[in-house]
């Protein structure tokens, strides 16, 4: 930095730029060549400086807190396996001036149009190949060239609907396209979360600067998807590879944000040439599929036969024009690295235009002249596989920097290129521009690339005014990839005038219809039911364990008859009372988290957070808590957190089919658990104190005291915990709830017919309602538990098959 600037900025309250040292010969986004902040950054830096280091630290912590609270994560695959990692937000946004953004947008819209025409030609008339502009051998060798879809015109009329482009700014100050994402671009949802988090930290600054909003982009694309489905009788769905995918969080987030069904391959089936989703109301047609999985995995019948996540027959449904895939199967071909080399010619041929935004200079070594050029300039090149669809800087296994090779490696690579030139491309090694990150009270430059999203609407391509920047942790430009420890920054497109504020909420002039969320996928229903069951099972277990440990703390003799009886009762369920937090209990709660993780799109972030917190607590207790008094307190904490989670669901979940299955799972499990525990503790041979303990487990001590002016006897305990319809812990109460909810489930076997499950619950409910306490022997209670359990099977057969 020039000395003069130091003079100029000294005296500010907190000089953030004091240590800012851009690299020689590299463009910096924030300061120009002489070290002066660019105009778009001036106010922003001043505002940060006015906040001062302490406030700034607090503000950035607020953004991190938001991301943790929202549960934003992505999955990282490393040697230790797959792990969820918190989203690495770089707090300082990348600022881009509106006019420059307009140029980027125009270049990318042109590129998207060009890609559409190119892909349509490759899967259609093949003029580019006939004219020798594209080499046939290159396309034919690509694993992304999907022969089963050759010749199919997409039902929507277009191959591409949603694309992303990775850009970098070179030393000449121009933006270059580093990579194209046309298969199933990820990250748009993360961009939105970045924005929310960043504005949490910098809301006042954001409010004062004229930053373009993101919501309108998503609204337009949602409307476009709904428009595509209109008239077809089918619905829109997002297809995800499932919770193990690295960006599943985002799939669930987008589904929730846009109100679109999130499906996995097994939720779908093809019937009569149409794509259908299995729901609790039967098969429902899907006519627009926004796929987040790679095309090759979409249909094991015609594409990769080893795919476990596809839908057999999907290609056939597409061939018949019954469904539009977003993007069309086969579109991933446009990500092929070698295609860069041909784009300028293709653009001239198809559109008679020069590219507004150049790609990073690329030479395909399958042709003599280009091969010779690459070999002659190998030290300035990045050499990689021609057919790779990965971004060069993410592909450290097979992409190598010519200048970094040893003499031996270099000779070997040259020999390979000379032999199998068609397998390689050479690309100019690019130096990325740097953007500021906040490190320990100062701003420091880090290399960055920019990801921008485009969506097709009936009016043409729309560009997300923002996106996200990937920022390196070090000055090494190859360490950008998120999988290897890069961070992500929000991108602010700044105008000098006030910008339009858009929201996803319907505007006043929009017509308003309430669409009922009618079709719950069967798999989601099953997961919701089990979530309800696991949560309830955890609670019931914790109640028993608390009653156990209270008594253990007083008696300190685990062989006392009542304690020994409980120990023997719990043991077959994998609950070992010798440990304060038994493995069986942890397992049940882990199962609840797993079930919930399968249906993240149906959860509010609060609900998910409460569940994760519960899980964290119990795992932590497992290592610290001792039996007896300590365990009693721990169980109380767990019960309180369970109640918090249940309360969130109960108070916040929309009362429709999804909630109904959750509720049914809960009531089923509580009915079973109460019946079994009662059978044990009210049996003739039950030890002393068992009835009091039962009341405690059934959370009914107070009620009992008020209702019955006598000591707990078998009759009164049974009356209160089995037959009292007003006690929310009684079996009859569970049956009444089950009867009500099952009656409201979608009908199976035709309107007006009672489903088998509805008949069963009606019978059971009636039978119990007219019982006397003396009828409820231990055996009758055990049978009742079995019958309630049998209800699950009838429901599963009708709704989860």
């Amino acid at each position, binding site marked *: 930095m020039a000395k003069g600037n130091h003079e100029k900025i000294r005296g500010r309250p907190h000089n953030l730029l004091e240590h800012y040292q851009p690299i020689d010969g590299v463009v910096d986004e924030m300061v120009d060549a002489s070290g002066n902040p660019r105009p778009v950054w001036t106010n922003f830096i001043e505002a940060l400086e006015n906040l001062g280091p302490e406030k700034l630290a607090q503000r950035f912590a607020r953004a991190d807190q938001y991301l943790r609270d929202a549960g934003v994560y992505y999955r990282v695959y490393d040697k230790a396996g797959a792990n969820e990692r918190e989203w690495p937000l770089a707090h300082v946004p990348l600022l881009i001036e509106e006019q420059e953004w307009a140029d980027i947008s125009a270049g990318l819209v042109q590129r998207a149009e060009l890609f559409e025409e190119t892909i349509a030609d*490759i899967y259609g008339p093949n003029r580019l190949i*006939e004219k020798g502009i594209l080499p046939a*051998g290159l396309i034919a*060798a690509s694993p992304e060239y999907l*022969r089963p879809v050759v010749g199919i015109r997409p039902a929507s009329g277009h191959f591409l609907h949603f694309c992303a482009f990775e850009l970098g700014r070179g030393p000449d100050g121009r933006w270059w396209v580093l990579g194209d994402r046309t298969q199933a671009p990820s990250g748009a949802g993360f961009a939105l979360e970045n924005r929310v988090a960043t504005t949490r930290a910098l809301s006042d600054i954001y409010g004062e600067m004229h930053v373009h909003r993101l919501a309108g982009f998503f609204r337009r694309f949602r409307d476009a998807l709904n428009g595509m489905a209109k008239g077809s009788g089918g619905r829109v769905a997002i297809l995800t590879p499932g919770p193990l995918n690295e960006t599943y969080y985002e799939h669930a987030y987008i589904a929730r944000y846009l109100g679109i069904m999130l499906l996995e391959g097994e939720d779908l089936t093809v*019937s009569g040439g149409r794509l259908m989703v299995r729901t609790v109301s039967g098969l429902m047609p899907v006519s627009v599929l926004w796929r987040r999985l790679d095309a090759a995995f979409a249909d*094991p*019948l*015609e594409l990769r036969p080893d795919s476990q996540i596809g839908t057999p027959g999907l290609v056939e449904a597409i061939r018949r024009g019954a469904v539009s895939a977003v993007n069309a199967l086969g579109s991933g071909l446009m990500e092929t690295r070698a295609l860069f080399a041909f784009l300028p010619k293709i653009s001239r041929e198809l559109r008679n235009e020069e590219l507004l935004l150049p790609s990073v200079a690329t030479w395909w070594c399958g042709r003599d002249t280009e091969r010779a050029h690459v070999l002659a300039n190998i030290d300035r090149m990045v050499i990689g596989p021609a057919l790779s669809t990965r971004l060069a800087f993410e592909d450290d296994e097979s992409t190598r920097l010519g200048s970094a090779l040893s003499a031996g490696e270099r000779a070997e690579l040259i020999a390979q290129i000379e032999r199998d030139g068609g397998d390689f491309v050479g690309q100019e090694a690019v130096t990325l521009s740097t953007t500021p990150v906040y490190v320990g009270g100062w701003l420091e430059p880090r290399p960055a690339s920019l990801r921008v999203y485009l969506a097709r609407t009936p009016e043409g391509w729309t560009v997300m005014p923002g996106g996200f920047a990937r920022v390196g942790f070090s000055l090494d430009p190859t360490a950008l990839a998120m999988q290897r420890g890069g961070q992500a920054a929000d991108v602010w497109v700044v105008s000098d005038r006030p910008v339009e504020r858009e929201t996803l909420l319907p505007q006043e002039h929009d017509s308003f219809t309430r669409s009922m969320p009618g079709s719950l996928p069967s798999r989601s229903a099953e997961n919701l039911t089990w979530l309800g069951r696991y949560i309830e099972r955890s609670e019931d277990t914790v109640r028993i364990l608390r009653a156990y440990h209270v008594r253990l703390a007083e008696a300190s003799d685990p062989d006392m008859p009542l304690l020994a009886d409980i120990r023997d009762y719990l043991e077959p369920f994998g609950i070992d009372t010798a440990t304060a937090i038994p493995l069986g209990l942890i397992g049940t709660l882990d199962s609840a988290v797993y079930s919930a993780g399968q249906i993240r799109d149906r959860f509010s972030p609060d609900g998910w957070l409460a569940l994760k917190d519960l899980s964290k607590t119990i795992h932590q207790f497992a290592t610290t808590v001792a039996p007896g008094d300590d365990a009693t307190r721990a169980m109380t904490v767990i019960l309180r957190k369970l109640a918090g989670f249940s309360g969130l669901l109960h108070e916040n979940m929309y009362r429709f089919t999804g909630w109904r299955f959750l509720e049914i799972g809960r009531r089923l499990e509580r009915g079973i658990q109460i019946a079994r525990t009662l059978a044990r503790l009210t049996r003739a041979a039950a030890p002393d104190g068992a009835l009091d303990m039962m009341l405690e487990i059934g959370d009914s001590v107070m009620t009992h005291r008020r209702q019955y002016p006598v000591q707990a006897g078998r009759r009164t305990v049974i009356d209160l915990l089995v037959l009292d319809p007003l006690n929310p812990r009684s079996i009859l109460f569970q049956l009444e709830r089950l009867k009500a909810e099952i009656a409201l489930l979608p009908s199976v076997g035709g309107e007006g017919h009672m489903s088998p499950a509805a008949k069963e619950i009606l019978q059971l409910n009636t039978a119990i309602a007219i019982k006397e306490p003396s009828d409820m022997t231990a055996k009758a209670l055990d049978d009742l538990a079995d019958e309630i359990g049998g209800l699950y099977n009838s429901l599963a057969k009708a709704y989860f098959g």
Partner: protein
Amino acid sequence: MLYDIRLNLRYDYDAAAGGGRHQVHVLPPTISGVQRVIAASLSFAPSPSERSDFSDFFGNSVTSIAFRDVHDALDIRMSARVAVSRPEPGLDVSPDIPRLRVELDAVRSLSPDTPHHFLAASDHAGVDAAITSYAQGSAGRSVVGTAMDLCSRIHRDFTYDGKATTVRTRASDAFSLKRGVCQDFSHIMIAGLRGLGVPAGYVSGFLRTIPPRGKPRLEGADAMHAWVKVWCGRDTGWQEFDPTNGMRASNDHITVGHGRDYSDVAPIVGVLKTTGGQVGEQAVDVIPVVLEKT
């Protein structure tokens, strides 16, 4: 030659299969200059709840079937009358391999029979250093000469063994075993030729077997067969070789389908929803038809 061909595929499932969707590639097509299909039929038991027929990318006939109901067996029967008449191989005017590369680059097409589809490694027939090095032993002649030599060497060097491999075995594994069946030998030859830069594909079909002198032809004793097609340059085009028998494809070879390897033309593909295993049986009859002169 005129043939009546009957094929019976049968699958018995350990546990009843609840629905399922399959694609079946067993119907021989008419191929100009090779064979003409006079009549053909394909039936399934139980009867599928959905059925549709279409041609795939390579022009093979595909029948797509789906079952909604539970079934514990699937029986597929195909019968066809096919007239085969292949031209006699003419004088070898095929180029050598360096020249073939130049001719290949000049092919500006992605139409289904274009050689470009058959050069890159495919799932079953990946390019493998050991196989390429073996194939090198046949190089240095015309493409037809190379293919014929490789075909004869595979016939000579490998042992036919129905138990050594499965339908999922890859060329590289069969190559190290030095044994296998027609599918494996074809994959090895394809991988070898691709390694040399010669486009090669997989042909599935039937082969008439001639019973030993004086013995009657056993019914259903024949099996489905596989051999190799090789692109021998602009003028010679595609030629077919049978490495299992060390010969060129003849009028005894009746084609059902062709593709990059077995997975493009597997007789049946599809996912069965069953927890148990499945057992498949295959019976083929290829009966020469002698039309009496009238």
